[in-house]
């Protein structure tokens, strides 16, 4: 059955190429920024944060949920491994954000407790929660796929995104426990760039 699916994907290759070309042919628009979304979240301290307020420094961001026992702890570990590849001076120049896709359960206090349990420095990491609509928009904007499963958890892609200072997607790592060189280099390049 998978064979049929793969064949169908090949059938759709022209469609995919056509879709990609929409962006390549664009002269009309500047790079899209997630800060253009009207997107308000609540951080682990219960403070409202409009995404636009984050403008000014690069971020490594991921979307996940604290009730996830299998892949999400691995994502946290992945972020820590990436983070360790930078000097203290470099680390001061970017942040890391965990956007929860489970607003019902991931309240600010749950997020705070999760961060503490995971040994995370909340001076540099931000844990965010919001509502279903806001989650859906951000997920759609960064190309994150997710679905509530039968046990009221979520199936989701393991996506780690690097946002530049203006909130544009600079790089995306689509799996964990794989080669991290590209994402590290992408962030290093961003940090080396002078601020506009």
């Amino acid at each position, binding site marked *: 059955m*998978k064979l*049929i699916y793969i064949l169908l994907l090949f059938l759709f290759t022209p469609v995919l190429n*056509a879709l990609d070309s929409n962006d390549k*042919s664009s002269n009309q628009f500047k790079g899209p920024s997630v800060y253009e979304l009207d997107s308000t979240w609540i951080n682990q301290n219960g403070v409202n944060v409009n995404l636009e307020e984050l403008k000014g420094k690069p971020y490594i961001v991921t979307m996940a949920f604290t009730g996830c026992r299998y892949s999400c702890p691995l994502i946290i570990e992945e972020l820590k491994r990436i983070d360790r590849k930078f000097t203290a001076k470099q680390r001061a120049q970017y942040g890391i954000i965990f956007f929860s896709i489970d607003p019902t359960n991931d309240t600010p206090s749950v997020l705070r407790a999760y961060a503490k349990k995971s040994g995370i420095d909340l001076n540099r990491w931000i844990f965010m929660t919001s509502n279903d609509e806001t989650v859906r928009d951000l997920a*759609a904007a960064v190309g994150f796929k997710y679905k509530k499963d039968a046990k009221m958890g979520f199936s989701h*892609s393991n996506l780690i995104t690097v946002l530049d200072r203006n909130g544009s997607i600079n790089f995306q790592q*689509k799996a*964990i426990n794989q080669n991290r060189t590209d994402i590290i280099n992408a962030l290093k390049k961003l940090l080396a760039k002078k601020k506009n």
Partner: protein
Amino acid sequence: MILGGACDFDCKAANDLMIQIPDGFYRPLFPERDPDLKEEIPALPVPVSSFLLDKFPVTVSEYIDFLSINKKWRKSIIPSIYADSLYLNNWEFDLEPGDLVNKKSPVTYVSWFSAKAYCAWKGKRLPTIAEWEYAASETPIEKILKWYSKPASEILPDVGLTFKNKFGTFDLHGIIWEWVLDFNSDLINEESRNGTEIERSMFCGGSSAGSSRPEDYAAFMRLAFRSSLNAKYTVSNLGFRCAK
């Protein structure tokens, strides 16, 4: 009013009509995977609660009404996060599509964000995959595939000319493909095809293998198309209708 099939009545008024879709079931193509047991849960039918669905896809004419009030979504100023550069590509001006666009046809070259905004403006929402697939499931697969295999005409026809299903909705197949709210919930993509341990590490509970309906090629094509989409993409034969 619909007799004869042509949209020779007031399309705007007709498009405000919604059809009550009764309780029913959606049959997913793939099983889910239990994250704890690492076993697949058979693809059981998913109950769909009764809901309202637009009788027709949203037309160009209706979309002009939306743009006349909601300036942010006009093609000259829409933020680039919400739509790619082909947004309303076949339109000449912000509020005037020009002679090459049939105002009674479904609006296309719209993004997921813009479709969602239109429905919200109407006090509605986009249908989910389960709702859409259930509502559209009554059309014979052969008819759908025949349409899929035909190239789309440059100027789209009026709404109301193609298949009417048993619930009374038109054009779910036959003119355009349609956006759904959770288009990005199909986790069958390039990262999850192998069915290996690596695949299991990609998702928290998801991924799948072995379809429940290997004969439904049309549904596979829709799945593949949806999986290829990004929320800001706009395509010549992709439009939408709203639900409530």
